[in-house]
């Protein structure tokens, strides 16, 4: 993957041909936006830029229950890291690609299993290239009836040359991917202001989410977020089996069990505290760690929240209500 922001591209594929392309790709591609493709016949191929799927892209690289490493239970030995099966993830939206940039920064070095899954995957993005991050192998930039194919890595170029017949050569174009985060906090000012707003928000801001806005504490906003990556560790050994794996399970700071320690003490037992922690992680802790929030503005947390809590509104509210005294 290439960190540059400016790319040259000349190959185009017609939207009409995408279903046929999907049919010949090997291994058979995973299409996160499948619902929008089905049935594969017909010319209507459309990637919704902001919200293509229920599942965020982390599902492929930090799956719920994915193995970190395998071990021989009887001999108490760690087994060598196996090879991950190759896969093509087709139609990843640009914001999820941006999320991948951040996830890579966090996990590639610390998490060999993540690195192995990343290495085995070919990421094909689609949508508005101007909003995309850098973590794509191939990007299909939406140009009306056609997609402009932008290769971001060797893997992407190889895919293009393997399926030449779908891509016709047009005039060469230079395209820019988004340099600055595409995320729009709806607040005036930058990420640093947002960080301060969350840090200094009055506790009543979080209480309001819990009581007036009826937050269920279900954690859906975490499961669907491409940048909620907290995990629980669980050893799995199927009964009677000799080998097992240490697995990482999804978790959410919205859950009471998240901060429970032995003996039953729960540090964040009250829901408003857990809500605060969710915002704190994304908009304060992450910003102070990396300079960008752990949010790409994909809107899933709002869209999939059963009581429709809009994080943008909550952030505005936080900025408007600094801690008193």
């Amino acid at each position, binding site marked *: 993957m290439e960190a540059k922001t400016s790319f040259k591209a000349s190959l185009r594929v017609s939207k009409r041909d995408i279903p046929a392309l999907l049919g010949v790709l090997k291994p058979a591609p995973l299409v996160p936006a499948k619902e929008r493709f089905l049935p594969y016949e017909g010319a209507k191929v459309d990637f919704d830029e902001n919200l293509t799927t229920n599942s965020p892209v982390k*599902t492929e690289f930090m799956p719920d229950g994915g193995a970190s490493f395998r071990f021989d239970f009887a001999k108490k030995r760690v087994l060598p890291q196996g090879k991950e099966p190759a896969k093509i993830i087709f139609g990843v939206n640009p914001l999820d690609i941006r999320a991948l940039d951040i996830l890579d920064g966090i996990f590639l070095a610390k998490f060999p299993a993540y690195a192995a899954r990343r290495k085995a995957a070919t990421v094909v993005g689609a949508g508005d290239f101007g909003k995309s991050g850098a973590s794509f192998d191939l990007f299909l930039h939406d140009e009306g009836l056609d997609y402009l194919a932008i290769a971001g890595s060797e893997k992407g170029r190889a895919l293009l040359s393997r399926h030449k017949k779908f891509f016709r050569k047009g005039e060469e174009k230079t395209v820019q991917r988004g340099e600055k985060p595409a995320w729009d906090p709806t607040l005036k000012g930058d990420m640093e202001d947002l960080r301060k707003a969350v840090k200094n928000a009055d506790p009543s801001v979080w209480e309001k989410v819990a009581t007036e806005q009826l937050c269920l504490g279900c954690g859906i906003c975490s499961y669907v977020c491409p940048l909620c990556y907290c995990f629980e560790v669980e050893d799995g050994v199927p009964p009677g089996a000799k080998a097992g794996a240490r697995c990482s399970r999804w978790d959410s700071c919205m859950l009471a069990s998240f901060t429970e320690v032995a003996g039953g003490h729960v540090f964040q037992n009250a829901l408003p505290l857990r809500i605060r922690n969710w915002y704190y992680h994304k908009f304060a802790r992450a910003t102070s760690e990396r300079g960008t929030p752990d949010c790409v503005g994909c809107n899933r947390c709002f869209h999939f929240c059963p009581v429709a809590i809009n994080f943008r509104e909550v952030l505005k509210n936080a900025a408007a209500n600094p801690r008193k005294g």
Partner: protein
Amino acid sequence: MPSKKKPLGRRRARPTAAPKKAPVQKSKPLVAIYDLTDCEGCELAFVPVVEAVAKTCEIVEWRLTQEKRMDIGDRKIDVAFVEGSPMSAEDREFLGKLRERTKVLVALGACACIGGVPALAGTAEREKFMSLVYSPEYKPKSDTPALPLDTVVKVDYYLHGCPVLPEMAARFLEQVLVGKAPDKFGGYPVCLPCKAAGNPCLLIQGNPCLGPVSAGNCGAPCPTFGKVCYGCTGAVKGGNFTQMRHKLAEILGEEMAEAHLRIFLKDEKGKR
């Protein structure tokens, strides 16, 4: 001034507590499975589990598979699973005796954990229904509604589910057998596996899904297959029932919302 003379706290020559080596266990742990009033679905779910761990333990009593009780002498049962609800004096007496000779007593399934579906008929309803279903002269065999086990004896672990999930039961049994204190179930809600499966949300579609307050150890088969969750795997730890009631009431109306919650769940106050 390191004082050598006056000890500041009382010292005591200290034998390094506890025997150095635990006695080597020669025989396999003894496991028994019992049922009271219920549908026996949990026992069925248990068949593959038992098959998988059969080598590491000895099944000493399981009425469904044995005609005669095995004589285990006065050895204690290591792990006893009890499925179903006690409903009569006989059941209660049996449980009392079982408790005495059992090290770890496990409530298996919703009926044993919270009374299950049959507990929806409370004492008052039972009288009414009894005359509907049976004749006036009929004397019921049961003298209580379907009770959770822990109203009669102390229960060490609860394996929720209607029926209990084989994978969950297997993991549990495996853990007690290795000597690891088993997982506490109910740390995360059904919404977690539901979202991991990429499902659209039923609540948002206006259906009364109990996923947010129910333990997700079942792996969310129901929402994954488009059916609302009834919470048969028990309540999630710290579930937000107040808000769930509000949300349900929006969908079902207040009265029905309460009834819907009651089918499989005890709320945060332990009320069903």
